[in-house]
């Protein structure tokens, strides 16, 4: 029982990271019907921006909570800018073209970021400074949670709540929802569709950056290709929850994280990556619109 609970905690932590990345996929899809394959690489950039700021502020030599917050914040701002640039220079020019063109552009951007990162940062893994020393808290019954796991949970939950607030209770959020219904109708109501799309990209990229920093804090090995697998899995998580649906992305992320940890813990670690795609195939067979997704309405 203790083992199961411990695995559950590991799974929820892992899942909340997937959820943060999945949110970016799902928001962009909701608004543009575009699968932004470069999203996983923005997550990688988040970890590297975090590394630079941590080195700049000497966070490891003299750690304090303020610096940790600064690392997270500046990584998020940096990736927000990257998201802005990607949208402006890669996706906007092809927005009026076919969806296939946009998809191929997304793959191109992804390859550019990965190999550009390889050129810039080098291929050998870097080690993220451990400016928050790990500490364990016993939860009883032999189950422990580390302060890093707690930080991941707390930060990702607050970011998700923040996102929920933005989408449901601000003008920009209202505009996002309007744009996701219909670009034309939203434009007729006086909403600047371009600006909302840019806003969505920036928001999604910031969440990915946060995920990158949080993961790097826990698993300090970072390298330019680190975004590929988490990116793919978060995409599966978004589809699992119902792509385009924000609570769905969170649910999908958690399901994925828990499933993965349980498979490794009780079956075999070679199944770790397979389980994501088994889940994807299952959901596409049983409920193609995802756990919380609405089946597409027939338009006449």
């Amino acid at each position, binding site marked *: 029982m203790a083992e199961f609970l411990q695995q559950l905690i590991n799974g929820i932590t892992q899942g909340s990271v997937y959820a943060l990345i999945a949110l970016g996929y799902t928001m962009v899809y909701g608004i543009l019907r575009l699968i932004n394959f470069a999203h996983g690489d923005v997550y990688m950039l988040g970890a590297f921006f975090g590394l630079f700021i941590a080195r700049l502020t000497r966070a490891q030599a003299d750690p304090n909570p303020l610096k940790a917050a600064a690392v997270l914040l500046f990584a998020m701002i940096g990736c927000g800018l990257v998201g802005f640039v990607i949208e402006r220079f890669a996706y906007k020019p092809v927005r009026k073209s076919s969806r296939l063109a946009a998809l191929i552009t997304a793959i191109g951007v992804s390859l550019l970021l990965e190999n550009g990162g390889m050129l810039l940062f080098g291929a050998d893994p870097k080690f993220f400074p451990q400016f928050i020393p790990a500490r*364990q808290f016993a939860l009883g019954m032999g189950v422990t949670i580390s302060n890093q796991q707690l930080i991941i949970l707390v930060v990702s939950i607050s970011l998700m709540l923040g996102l929920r607030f933005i989408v449901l209770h601000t003008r920009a959020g209202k505009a996002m929802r309007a744009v996701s219904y219909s670009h034309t109708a939203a434009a007729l109501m006086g909403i600047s569709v371009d600006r909302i799309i840019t806003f969505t990209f920036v928001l999604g990229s910031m969440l990915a950056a946060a995920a990158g920093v949080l993961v790097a804090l826990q698993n300090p090995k970072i390298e330019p290709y680190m975004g590929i697998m988490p990116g793919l899995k978060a995409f599966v998580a978004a589809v699992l929850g119902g792509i385009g649906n924000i609570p769905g992305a969170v649910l999908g992320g958690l399901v994925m994280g828990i499933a993965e940890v349980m498979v490794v813990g009780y079956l075999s670690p070679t199944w770790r990556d397979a389980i994501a795609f088994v889940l994807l195939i299952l959901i596409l067979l049983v409920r193609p619109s995802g756990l919380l997704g609405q089946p597409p309405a027939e338009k006449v």
Partner: protein
Amino acid sequence: MTSRWGQRLTLAGSLIVALALAGCGGGGSSSGKDEIVIGEYGSLTGGDATFGQSTKSGVEVALDELTAKSQGKIGGLTVRAVVEDDQGKPEEAASVVQKLINQDRVVAVVGEVASSRSLAGAPICQQNGIPMISPSSTNPDVTRKGDYIFRMCYLDDFQGQVMARFAIQNLGLKRVAMLKDVKNDYSVALSKFCTEEFVKDGGTVVVEQSYSSGDQDFRAQLTAIKAKNPQAIILPGYYTEAGLIGRQARELGLTMPIIGGDGWESSKLLEIGGDAMNGCYYANHWSLDEQNPQLQAFLTAYRAKFKSDPDAIGGLAYDAATVLFGCMEKLAAEDPATFAGLGSSKAGTEARKAATKKLRDLIAATANYQGATGLITLDENRNPKKPIVMIAVKGGKKVFETRIAP
């Protein structure tokens, strides 16, 4: 419009010509002057990059020594090393070895560290009759690939035995967990040998878990291990994963020792693992404080050149290179006519074939060679028998624990 297209076409055309010319210049015998080209392949980048980097540094020290001794020449021919990066991938290792042999026309190859990659490169060297000396691949299968394949280190059957006996006799352990890397030939074989010996000596492996190289998160496996409450974890993997696993194990409240093999030997181990590695042990090829004059000479040269301490991987590479140079010198002295076949101008000829064959025979006859990593005598299977040094990590430092002779 047409004129612009014309310009572009001309540009593209001239580019193609330029590339083709560059291609010709790069391949084949690049210069008229005769020299001896040796090849080296290793992981200069990737998850276990220090393996390849240390190997490169070790060979560089050997080359510097040759420069100081005889202007970098053997038998009147300058020795040049071509280094290729296999990015830590076996398939890449096979293609760079192919390139070393076909394009650079090397006479011998030094490499690899990781057994998976030596196993990929060895058959190609064997087919082409090019001697390959793996400095530090411990998997027994490596030298079984053929009679042109040698190594400078001990084997995993012995290493596995030593790790198991060390756990039972020196640490007094009875119940251990085994955590191996299923994607890694070295790890799979070493864990098998270690388990066999451990069970034979009366211990039990209470839980066996595995991971794949490149994994980041090991909490699920460690949680499963924790549930069985073993006295130690045996982790025959590479340093990156060992460091991450150590860290995560301590985080989950697993405070027992973790015991590893020579795959842990890297300056990065403690950088990644940090304080979590305290109280861990691993099998190694040397310890830096040994009173071996050859080792101390290598240390002085290495420190002067790189301003840091070498790891055993670098030491073994230095030994591989010096054994190779020694055999070439011997060939030049004993049989100058055959030796001339090693020159780059003889690439692809029968003379070259005869020369590499003779070189192979000389390497195979290596006996009582005093290297930086100890005395090297190759047996009929082209493997040396060398003692193992167990290293303990204490207070963030690697210290000598005990030496176990074969």
